[in-house]
């Protein structure tokens, strides 16, 4: 009997109530993947796109050619920022639940990516993050108070009340403004890197999108321009297995790893254990060195897991097993770094408790200060005139009239 044509419908390996199953994830052993010289041609290193670069092994030891040999101070610094990012997320998630902010997105379980990559890049490299890269802002020294004020849309808000929570920016620290429209930043980063090359500068650009967002045309524009002009850019796909309710199979992840999207265009793709801070750091250093020395773009796929809901508007228990994260074979990035530090004799449970206490205090103090700039329901409130500014460099007459109309209506004088 001949079979009628049919559509392949991607199905996740487990739905709510079923046993999590990550057998589809192809893993390599820690230390098992070769590290080629940065000058290597893309066609000779295609293996990097389907193997998995890992440094930390099951015994929490660093293994193999990708071990970046970070010293104790660097490792502790990385852990500090991961713990701080998680503490920040935890607090903001809770204040959203209390109705103090309208919306929030956590990066739970993905902290090693922002922190590891942020540490590997130079301060004047330009970053084009997605909404789940808060660690980059924190690592580059954005004050938590400023980030909280953004989420509160209060008088301290860097975006002057224009954007929803989590849409940060930090021009001084070279981190771009976050867009709510998926993947738009990806080709923009390529353009920035082209600009860097045109100007003859050494700065490189990096950008991040989720697995789901790779479906957008903007992702493909980015890769095409990067392949054609070979600008100094690092393009990252954060494959946390889920978009909202659709798993990465709906972005084509069942066929080839996302890292292999570069291969067809001649861009090296590297698949890395996104929950292994050392591996993330090492592949980013490799890609940055390539870019900085004129060897062109790199596509990095970080294999990780979205530990929380998509956002505070989402309920993942409707579409995936509750215990899926616990079954994820690459574990929790923070715990893995802690265990590594303990193994090296640089860390203890007491150190960890003290660090968590300290970061909690930092976050508490920042929150107290942030709310002194106002909340959605408590003064001081932002001046509504701000609504009409920055549409253009200079306010056109029709906006001045609209502003005055509003002020007359609310009884404030222009």
């Amino acid at each position, binding site marked *: 009997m001949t079979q009628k044509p049919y559509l392949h419908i991607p199905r996740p390996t487990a739905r709510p109530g079923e046993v999590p199953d990550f057998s589809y994830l192809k893993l390599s052993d820690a230390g098992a993947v070769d590290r080629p010289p940065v000058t290597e041609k893309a066609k000779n290193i295609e293996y990097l796109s389907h193997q998995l670069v890992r440094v930390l092994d099951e015994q929490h030891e660093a293994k193999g050619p990708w071990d970046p040999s970070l010293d104790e101070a660097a490792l502790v610094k990385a852990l500090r920022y991961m713990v701080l990012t998680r503490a920040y997320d935890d607090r903001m998630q809770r204040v959203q639940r209390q109705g103090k902010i*309208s919306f929030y997105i956590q990066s739970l379980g993905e902290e090693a990516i922002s922190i590891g990559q942020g540490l590997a890049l130079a301060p004047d490299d330009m970053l084009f993050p997605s909404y789940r890269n808060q660690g980059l802002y924190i690592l580059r020294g954005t004050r938590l108070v400023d980030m909280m004020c953004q989420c509160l849309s209060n008088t301290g808000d860097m*975006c002057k009340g*224009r954007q*929803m929570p989590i849409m940060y920016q930090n021009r001084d620290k070279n981190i771009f403004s976050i867009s709510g429209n998926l993947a738009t930043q990806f080709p923009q980063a390529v353009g920035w890197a082209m600009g860097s090359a045109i100007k003859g500068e050494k700065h490189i650009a990096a950008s991040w999108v989720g697995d789901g967002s790779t*479906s957008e*045309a903007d992702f493909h524009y980015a890769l095409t321009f990067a392949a054609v002009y070979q600008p100094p850019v690092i393009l990252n796909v954060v494959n946390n297995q889920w*978009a909202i309710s*659709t798993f990465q199979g709906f972005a084509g992840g069942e066929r080839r790893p996302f890292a292999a999207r570069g291969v067809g265009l001649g861009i090296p793709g590297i698949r890395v254990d996104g929950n292994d801070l050392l591996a993330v750091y090492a592949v980013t250093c490799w890609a940055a060195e390539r870019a900085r020395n004129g060897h062109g773009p790199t596509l990095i796929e970080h294999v990780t897991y979205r530990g929380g809901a998509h956002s505070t508007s989402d309920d993942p228990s409707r579409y995936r097993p509750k215990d899926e994260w616990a079954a994820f074979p690459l574990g929790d990035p923070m715990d893995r770094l802690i265990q590594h530090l303990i193994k090296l004799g640089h860390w203890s449970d007491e150190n960890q408790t003290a660090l968590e206490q300290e970061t909690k205090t930092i976050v508490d103090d920042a929150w107290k200060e942030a709310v002194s700039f106002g909340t959605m329901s408590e003064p001081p409130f932002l001046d509504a005139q701000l*609504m009409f500014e920055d*549409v253009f460099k200079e306010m056109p007459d029709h906006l001045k009239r609209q502003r005055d109309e509003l002020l007359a209506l609310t009884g404030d004088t222009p």
Partner: protein
Amino acid sequence: MSQMNMIQAINSAHLLMMEKDPSVVVLGEDVGYFGGVFRCTDGLQKKFGEHRVIDAPIAEGGIISTAIGMGVNGLRPVAEIQFADYIYPGFDQIVSELSRLRYRSGGEFFSPVTIRTPCGGGIRGGQTHSQSPEGIFSHISGIKTVMPSNPYDAKGLLISAIESDDPVIFFEPKRIYNGPFDGDPDKPGVSWSTHPMGEVPKGYYNVPLGKAAVVEEGDELTIICYGTIVHVAQAATRLTGVRAEIIDVRTLFPLDIDTLKKSVEKTGRCLVAHEATRFCGYGAELVSSVQQECFWHLEAPIERVTGWDTPYPHAFEWKYFPGQQRIAAGIRKVMEAG
């Protein structure tokens, strides 16, 4: 009859049309297993299977272009764009392809795609979850545009949209999915069960495209509006005590100019209101059409109340949103003029 909110009414339209016509297919981000982020397609995949209710990759341009292809192949696709703010990656396919296919092929090819998309503000969504781009799409020749203001119309108009052999963009004002909203955010929410238009037949019926509805009769002023603003205008009218005739255009294109004309000829005064920005907004078309048709009956300049000409802000939502106070001020202005 039964009580439905707008989500249930939209869901019911899908269900009936999918039962009635095996060529109707649904596609969009999170619409299948999950049933849509606003739950408008809840239960459809279970009932009709994964080949008729299709979870799509996150690519609005891909969703719209593949819907066009399915339509050319004899299917009747209903595509959901998760938020109207995310429709733009599909803009080229709508403007250059979907809208002109029939024309460019001398009537040989067409694709009866319906694009549904939640629009409008009032949910603290900021600039990426609050836009009202109906004017942009009503400007394109070859596309019909619809925005219902209640569950009864939502179901009846969606059925007509799906049945239409012309492409339709169906805007769903998300603020009133669960209940009518009169523009006062401090009042407790009201459900559709207390509203006459929340009474929705379980079975098939339609509300024809291109027919406006007179929501309230009056003889002093005509207010032309659609979507959420219909309810805000009703409340604003009560604030002023003016006997206004409130018209819900329901279908933005084709516009039911006869109903508008009849009303303005009677009242001699007209106010147009929408959430979208003002400059080149849909209101400009309404004002122009009414002026042309009713000039000799007008006793005062036609007034427009709209969103300000800025992106939709997060912090100043209720100063941006054209609420009761601004509409009431507009009403007084038209009544005092001339």
